[in-house]
């Protein structure tokens, strides 16, 4: 059984010009121990998706669909029940380690907080566990670091602390929202290793939000490509990276800067996808990518594209895709 099943999730922000649909009927599932990457450019609804799963978006936001996690629909839980899920069964790593830690509390007390909250540990026990977590995430001299404040740590260290906080209660699901975007490239690799290793140890599922296809190649088992809040392609990481079928995924891959063999830079410009992401208030009857698509046909504008299985474990939401026979 899937660990978490997101079923036709839509997230709507009410506004003066009607509801803004940031996530539009997104469905996916994560198995225990599996790492699923949600990929897309800025504004495609990646972060909103996980914020919706965690119900962090505030009272004005409306949700449609269901998020089934451990046999319950998270969207239907009361706020008190949801609090018991957050930080306990689902751990979250934020993008900005610089600002996602409270500047006026020691890192030790911040890690201990969720332990005392969810596990009811005493001050001493939670401190011992926080110490354990700090050494687990590779912070040297944890017995000294535990009483330090975030501003005394480097960016990589802080992200390690964030991971320690997210993992403190042994969550079944780990959500990492662009965990390496704010970090140096060298530190990025270490942090990714750490997330992979810890998730494997716990047997936890991971939802990884990123726009960095390097990170996807490094960490993900399965990839979901989203565009304008909709899924456009889903498949194993190898399938998506090696045989992308959707024009948007192809564009995304071609827009990735890379080094050519021999050490020289590739001659010429990087390819870019013409046009912009459609605004949230725009109502798109057909394919969301149609206005920017080089292969668009008249019918793409009128009708939603179907989900087409193009290989085993590979789904493309495009009218032009050829299904496997």
């Amino acid at each position, binding site marked *: 059984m899937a660990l978490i099943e997101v079923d036709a999730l839509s997230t709507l922000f009410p506004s003066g010009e009607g509801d803004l649909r940031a996530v539009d009927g997104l469905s996916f599932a994560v198995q225990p121990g599996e790492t699923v990457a949600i990929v897309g450019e800025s504004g495609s609804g990646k972060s909103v998706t996980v914020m919706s799963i965690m119900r*962090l978006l505030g009272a004005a936001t409306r949700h449609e669909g269901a998020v089934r996690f451990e046999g319950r629909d998270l969207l239907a839980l009361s706020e008190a029940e949801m609090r018991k899920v957050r930080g306990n069964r689902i751990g979250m790593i934020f993008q*900005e380690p610089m600002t996602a830690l409270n500047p006026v509390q020691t890192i030790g007390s911040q890690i201990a*907080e969720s332990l005392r*909250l*969810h596990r009811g540990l005493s001050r001493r026990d939670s401190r011992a566990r926080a110490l354990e977590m700090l050494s687990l995430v590779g912070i040297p*001299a944890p017995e000294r670091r535990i009483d330090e404040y975030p501003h005394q740590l480097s960016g990589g260290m802080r992200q390690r602390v964030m991971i320690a906080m997210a993992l403190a209660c042994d969550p079944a699901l780990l959500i990492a929202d662009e965990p390496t975007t704010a970090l140096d490239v060298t530190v990025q*690799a270490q942090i990714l290793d750490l997330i992979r290793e810890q998730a494997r140890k716990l047997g936890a599922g991971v939802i990884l939000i990123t726009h960095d296809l*390097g990170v996807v*190649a490094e960490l993900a088992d399965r990839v979901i490509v989203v565009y304008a809040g909709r899924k456009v392609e889903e498949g194993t990481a190898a399938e998506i990276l090696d045989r992308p079928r959707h024009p948007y995924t192809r564009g995304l891959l071609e827009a990735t800067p890379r080094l050519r063999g021999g050490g020289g830079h590739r001659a010429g410009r990087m390819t870019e996808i013409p046009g912009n992401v459609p605004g949230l208030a725009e109502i798109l009857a057909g394919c969301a990518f149609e206005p920017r698509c080089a292969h668009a046909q008249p019918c793409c504008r009128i009708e939603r594209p179907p989900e087409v299985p193009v290989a085993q474990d590979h789904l493309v939401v495009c009218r032009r895709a050829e299904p496997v026979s």
Partner: protein
Amino acid sequence: MNDMSTTLEPMVVIAAPPPQRAMRIRFAFRGLLRNRPLAAGAAILTAILLLAIFAPLIAGHDPRAVSVGDRLLPWGADHLLGTDMLGRDIFARILYGARVSLLIGGCCALLSCLFGTVIGMISASSRLSDAIVMRVLDGVMSMPAVLLAIALMAIAGGSATNVIVAVTIVETPRCARLIRGLMLSLRERPYVEAAIAAGSGQIRLLTRHLLPSLMAPLAVQATFIWAASMLIEAALSFIGAGVPPSTPTWGNMIAEARSLWQVKPALIFVPAAALSLTILGVNLLGEGLRQAFDVKAGR
């Protein structure tokens, strides 16, 4: 990125020895002394506070004891700063006046911050409460403090308590607005969101993540209210609408000296200087606190 992780050397960590706790405290203390306004303000206020607390021991005279034979004596060994037109010891009256000033100032600062924090938080909690609370506060703020105090004195009679009530009513909105603004901006901080994502409830969020961050600006605001309320108290005493005239205050000392200051300038100069010095001390303390909080954490 794939091959990046495999070619990386293991992380080399060079760590400095940790400063011992006692040493850390000493460093912090030295840091505070280097903060000139803070050190100066604290020194001035501590001195005045000690003089006020131990007034009965230091003064040597009853501040209310009238002695017709000793009127308008110059400063000397017996009467340190001389006597006023009723032969009362000016030094003693200054010390006892400091008690009134500091007490009223301190109470007003404390109460305004307390009420202001509660009201500010209520205001920030929802859009509806924000609209209502803020409009009410705007109304309260439009009343001049001195005028409100006079009205209150006229209804309830002059007493230290009523002065405190009047000043608190006027100063609370200032504090509430500050807290509301801070709450609105703090709520959007990623670490608050991270705390919610870790399962914190409203109360824990408030006490563990929001209140500590409010303390610094609140302390600075408190010093401003302290200074402002001492000035208002002096003004009220001056026009005779404050503490009853039987209690020596700097304000009524200045008022009584009005007719005689050409004969004996010290009568008006000494209490005015005391008031100015105290307010200078409070303002220096506030400025020092502001600087101290600014540097830390690079906020």
